[in-house]
């Protein structure tokens, strides 16, 4: 009988499974396990894993830390196309704090290719989305959480940070910037 009627065999559990159906089940199971293993394998051997390091913070505390880095390492003030934001060039290995707020990413960092930095992400109001283009790295950014990600830019260039979490009427104007320079430039 069909699928909209009760099974015709009362003891349907004992019916043998069709051979091709069984082969497909085996293939599907193996593929499922391969995909599961792939994520673990990448944690061990891959170079792109999202960090787990996160701290509870407050907006004031986080803003103060960002300000301290900006005060210490600002090399110049941006022009009008850079919203006159501070351009900050911290030494390799340092903690850099990026602030998401309505509707800016502040400040602008200048990093060196091949060097590692500890990028901190948090917001001052709503949630925002850190979307680094044209790399296409996308990370959710929360208020009151300080997310610490070790990044190693592998290519010099001008990068944009698009906000990709809806944050109100000016959402589409929320674009920030990051520069990556070759060593010695």
């Amino acid at each position, binding site marked *: 009988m*069909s699928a909209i009627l*009760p099974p015709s065999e*009362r003891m349907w559990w004992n019916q043998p499974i069709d051979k091709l*159906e069984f082969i497909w089940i085996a293939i599907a199971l193996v*593929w499922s396990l391969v995909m599961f293993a792939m994520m673990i394998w990448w944690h061990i051997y891959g170079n*792109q894993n999202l960090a787990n390091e996160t701290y509870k913070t407050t907006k004031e505390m986080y803003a103060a830390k960002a300000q301290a880095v900006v005060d210490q390492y600002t090399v110049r003030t941006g022009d009008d196309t850079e919203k006159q934001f501070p351009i900050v060039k911290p030494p390799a290995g340092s903690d850099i704090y990026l602030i998401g707020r309505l509707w800016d990413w502040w400040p602008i960092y200048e990093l060196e290719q091949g060097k590692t930095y500890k990028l901190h992400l948090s917001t001052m109001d709503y949630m925002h989305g850190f979307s680094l283009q044209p*790399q*296409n790295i996308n990370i959710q950014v929360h208020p009151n959480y300080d997310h610490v990600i070790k*990044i190693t830019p592998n290519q010099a260039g001008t990068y944009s940070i698009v906000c*990709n979490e809806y944050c109100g009427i000016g959402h589409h104007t929320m674009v920030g910037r990051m520069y990556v320079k070759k060593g010695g430039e």
Partner: protein
Amino acid sequence: MATTYRICPRSGLQFNSDAEKLMRWHAVAGVLSLLVGGIMALGVILTRWPAVKLLEADTFYMVLTAHGLNMLIFWIIFFEMAVLLFASSTLLRCRLAMPRLAWFSFWLMAIGAVMTNIAVFQGESSVMFTSYVPMMAKPHFYLGIILFAVGALLTCFIFLGTLVVAKSEKTYEGSVPLVTFGALTACIIAIFTIASGAIILIPTLLWSLGYIREIDSLMYRTVWWALGHSSQQVNVSAHVAIWYAIAAIVFGAKPMSEKVSRTAYFLYILFLQLASAHHILSDPGLGSEWKVVNTSYFMYFAVFASMIHGMTVPGAIEQAQRLKGYNKGLFEWLRKAPWGNPAFSSMFLSLVGFGFLGGISGVMMGAEQLNMLIHNTIYVPGHFHATVVIGTTLAFMGLTYFLVPVLFKRELLFPGYAKIFPYLFGLSMYMVALVMMGAGTLGVARRHWDMSFAGAPMAYEWPGAAYLMMGLTGIFGTIACVSGGLWILQIVFSLLFGKKLEEGEKLSMPIPLTLPAPTPGGAAHPPATPGTMVLALIFLTAFILYYFVNWKYLSSLWGMA
């Protein structure tokens, strides 16, 4: 008024009068929500089409909020409640448990849907379907969703009560039909889903009223997605049940193996809910171990289950067709299928689109690290338009063609349109999903009014291909909206003006279902299904290739640890 039963002369199904009336009202409320959501869809698509850019930013975000809510919550859940009533009272041929309560819950849902829509169109609750804190909507926005959810929850219990009625009044023999089993799976997941929604939305309502000072944004996302994603798993269970139902109705197809199909459903119950993790893979504050275990539905056991259904549904059709003599080669069974029957063509396009476009993309972006490539890009709506529109909505629309004569007792008007509709709507949605995923792969953001960043000094210039794909999204999205709108008109006109059909015999007592005695010497060995196996292997090849291409792409990015 005592409840009565009728046997539909066209399908042989037996309808209980209480349940039948409720199903009709739920289906109509669902289609009305679809109408509102569809009009909103047109607004969304015509704004995101860079050359058109129809709406202003504030209107766009309001329309987008209304689109998400009416489609993902109201249309689908109203229709699913009708499916639950059908799978219990009709398929088990019994009376409905607590019909008065069922009406009460229907009206709760209806009032909730209207209330939330009012809140959205008043313009101060443009917080998107997800209503992430700390962005605040008006209290009646949350209250409407809560009322709707409570109504749906009560209907879930009425479904369970009806199963008890059928069992104790012995209206069927043996086990419940597979389709009812699938509906039961959907119901169990729905209860989990709705409870999660209540756990997060009730405090959020109190916050919006000023009684709670703060809702943690990470807690909100973690719990909210147990509503937001798991409710989509209700859809999966429901539309897979409908695939089996349509295969049974159109071909008389019998499941290849009751054991396999039911076990696959059982895996859904155990593991599907874990998928709310998909949305928080790129969030801080949750450990990788938690992410890996949850995003993979433990060890991809729910994907495994879907891959099984993906083979056993066409496999059951192939067996039924081969028994009818369509035995030539690998694919005669498929070539000779009734491609002009909209119930079948919708179901088949739903199955293929759900697997190839929705399934593969969903698993790819659900891998913990790969998620960083697509989180919050327009790839995500590309994926879920393949699952929810092509998978769920198209299956529901196909079933509706069957329900017009059977449940509503009306002759379908414009049958010529019914023949082409699944292709017109289904294939244009295939294209919408594909080009959205393409634009998302290039990074284009979802929920974004203007990809040219008008007014932003540091504007980013998307590659030309991204503009091309957003333009194509506009073109194919418009075709889908218009053909979907015509479908709504066709159904509404048929219900209002279609020729009334014979009702069938009225009975005061249900006729229990008796099964024919098992054939002596056991059932004949069913034919093998090589055609389905070939299709399944093509699917697997596409899956593996696409999966690893994305790891390759990931490996080219900045180092992150």
